[in-house]
């Protein structure tokens, strides 16, 4: 039962999120983030 729920969760929630991220390169997992000028979570200048 739990495995089935996990399968549903993967198909209904995770895959669409992943697809959106890969299309828009909108997450820290994507290529755009890899090319960003900094990877610090908080801007160094503001510290």
């Amino acid at each position, binding site marked *: 039962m*739990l*495995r089935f*729920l*996990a*399968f549903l*969760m*993967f198909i209904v*929630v*995770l*895959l669409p*999120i*992943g697809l959106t*991220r*890969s299309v828009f390169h909108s*997450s*820290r*997992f*994507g*290529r755009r*983030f*890899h*090319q*960003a*000028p*900094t*990877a*610090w*979570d*908080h801007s*160094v200048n503001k*510290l």
Partner: protein
Amino acid sequence: MAIYVLGISAFYHDSAAALVKDGVPVAAAQEERFTRVRHDPAFPAQAIAYCLDAEGITLDDLEAVVYYEDPQEKFSRVISSFASGGIGGARTFINAMPEWIRWKWNVLKFVDEQLEILSRGKAPRTQASQHHRSHAAAAFYPSPFKNAAVLCIDGIGEWHSTTIWHGKGSNLELKNSISYPHSVGLLYSAMTYYCGFKVDSGEYKLMGLAPYGQPIYADKIRDELINIREDGSFTLNMKYFEYLRGERMVGEAFEELFGGPIRQPESPISQRECDLAASIQKVTEEVVLGLATAAVKQTGERNLCLAGGVALNCVANGVLSRSGRFDSIWIQPAAGDAGCALGAALDFAVKHSGRPHLDGNKSDAMSGSLLGPGFGDEEIAQFLLENQYPFTRYDDAGLYDQVASRLAEGAVVGWFQGRMEFGPRALGARSILGDARNPEMQRTMNLKIKYRESFRPFAPAVLAEDAGNYFDICEKSPYMLMVAPVTDSIKSQQSRQESGPERGLGSINNIRSQLPAVTHVDLSARVQTVTEENNAPFTYLLRSFKERTGCSVLVNTSFNVRGEPIVCKPEEAYACFMRTEMDVLVLGRYVLERPGQPAFVEAVDWRSEIPLD
């Protein structure tokens, strides 16, 4: 009344428990030492029982129980990771989720239930710390510094893989962080996996392999795998990594990049693996130096504390030390996740008790990291007499003189004294010792004692006051976490030449210095500086050896065979002694020579019981 706080780390690898009394660590141990399962991730029931027994208390006496990380935050990272991993992660996700839903999601409740099963009283409800906060607390609070920059670098916690903290008195403030999936620890682990070693335990093998190679792949790593910024931050190019899907670290893209398949475990090691190791080590050193420099800039402090698995990379630590960018560096001896148990407890305890060790004249609050179980002479004698093992008992002076004499004769000695170390290194409480001047010692220890790969180097323990005579070391290294070059004065003639010593895989047994057993192929050594404050018996032994030989250096390696956790009890030390070709075993004041010991018969061949690491 004393305030006791129990810290717990568990359910990933290296489970551990630690007990802090009035702001001072008084007991800590990894579960693996009791269960004899290397890197045991299980609930640390025996380690907790030991901690309570060490202070003669029950769970009722605890002010707090603190778990080392936040399960909900970790869960959100796991979900997010699988979302970005795509369809390839479906099977792993479906297999992993039931466990998360059943208990991992609410691990604090599970910990409470496990504590109840111990039947040692009623514990306060477990509360959660955060993974990197636990690392930072373990790095800063026991350190000798009133204020410091604190840098934690590991594989992954909840979200953070790298954090910078400002330690000020009894406070820790998070200044900045780098988050998953970007992690220098995971980058190093990925190369470890690619080179055919186990993730989370084989990294130190890769580090040991690096000096045999040339960093010919370093540019490729910089160009393709990691983007290192001038501000010290970095990201990984995720198209080369597969850990988002939870099954393996790297795959075809990585193989294509480096032009070859993942090395099969236990297959012969080639120059290629050495070059890969040298390359990832070089890039890691650059990243760590950049991060440490950023930590100093962002906090304004020049004293640096380190923790996290990457802080066990003693070659990188040596680079930091020699860079001159820091006034002083202190590294938590249990820098990996086991140390998070201590950090979680300290983070709570220091708020109530402050940092009492700063008021005294101690160099730090770790008691030499000798926080594990100890065994008195009576217990040892009982064990030996019950089993009719022949021994000789010595008084203090006689003991050190006798052991030093046997070491000088070339004997390999199992040295079991006092309380066990907390952390991955043997520091002279559960150690195998040998004469570092002996050109045969490295080969003997690797092949006849440890039964491990012949490329792996051994570390020297040296009297702190004499360290400068042998090693170009900038500061104390009480926990064997700094690599330093050997001094010119002890280098062999060939090593002094401009071309330097031969560094290929076949050169391991070449004589490079007056301390051939501990001088690695790049003329470096992973130094432990020994003081009376940190470990009095070991200091007396080194002094005795110096009186006899003029040399205050010994080979110090952990008291175990390959794949086995370091021994904890006298019976485990005796078994290890008899399974190997060690010459002498010292248990407290009792000295056992191999000749004369009864035949050691075991029902099952231990080699089949201990999996290779």
